[in-house]
């Protein structure tokens, strides 16, 4: 590799990392703003929002880590295992904080009452779908994490097992995205 190529690669990495850090920070400002909203439930909403976006960012990053395993390429096993564990814990926190804010959603004069009174289809179709699909990423991430800890490093000798982990991560991410977008739409419609 020539010096010019090496410099170009390093520069590309720098640009990608800077882009990710800037985008993730700005994205996190979205739920952080909830803490300052004029609502008695701004704190709960902020906590759930920060956890949900963090889980989505980590889940998205993990899809890039999982793709090489779909092709049977060796990966940094220990690093992947730690990231998967982190994603599992984040998704557990997302489900728990989701339960927490869901109480207010269903509370007196809460978003559910307003949505049912004005645009009921957003509750009967979107929310009734979102509240369950949002629970899916945690068990799926735990499944992938379990496989990495149970089989250990030798898992890389069986491509069918690594492919299974890769697909599980991709599927978990798709549910994360579905739940996130639905949650964002509902929060935009009526804040807690």
């Amino acid at each position, binding site marked *: 590799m020539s010096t010019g190529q090496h410099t170009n690669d390093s520069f590309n990495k720098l640009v990608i990392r800077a882009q990710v850090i800037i985008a993730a920070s700005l994205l996190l400002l979205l739920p952080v703003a909830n803490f300052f909203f004029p609502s008695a439930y701004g704190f709960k909403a902020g906590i759930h929002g920060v956890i949900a976006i963090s889980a989505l960012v980590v889940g998205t990053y993990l899809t890039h880590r999982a793709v090489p395993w779909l092709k049977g390429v060796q990966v940094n096993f220990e690093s992947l295992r730690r990231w998967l564990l982190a994603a599992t814990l984040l998704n557990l926190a997302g489900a728990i904080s989701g339960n927490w804010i869901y109480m207010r959603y269903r509370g007196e004069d809460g978003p559910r009452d307003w949505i049912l009174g004005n645009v009921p289809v957003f509750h009967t179709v979107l929310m009734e779908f979102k509240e369950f699909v949002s629970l899916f990423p945690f*068990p799926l991430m735990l499944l992938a994490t379990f*496989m990495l800890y149970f*089989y250990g490093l030798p898992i890389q000798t069986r491509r069918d097992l690594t492919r299974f982990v890769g697909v599980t991560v991709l599927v978990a991410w798709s549910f994360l995205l579905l739940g996130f977008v639905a949650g964002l739409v509902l929060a935009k419609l009526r804040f807690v």
Partner: protein
Amino acid sequence: MRENERAPVLYSGPAVAASLAVLLAFFTLMVSHHVSRLTPALDKAVHAFGHWIPGAIGSGPDGSIGSYSGKETLAIVVWLTSWLLLHWLWRKQDFCLALWLRCFVITLFLIVLGFFHPLADPVVLFIADALGVI
């Protein structure tokens, strides 16, 4: 690796057990959700399983998660018990993972459709009517 050292034998059974348990949990979530929507008495019955969860009961502005708590509880119980049982049964079994992966993804997709009311409701009402529940 030395020549006399053999690679450990990996069985796919535990992976199939863990993933099937996840599907069973999601299926339980779907069934309990539809059951709870049929009549207030059934909703109360499902809710009763989840009273242990903080915020399961309550009213006023703070609200509560209601029968969602019972659905979560039933799903968790089915998930963990089936995982333990299937893991123990299949810990030394080897299955065709390529085939199971297809089954896993397709079943998951069908369960997801089960949470989409415009599609699921006619089916649920047909089954409930046939069973004489409503």
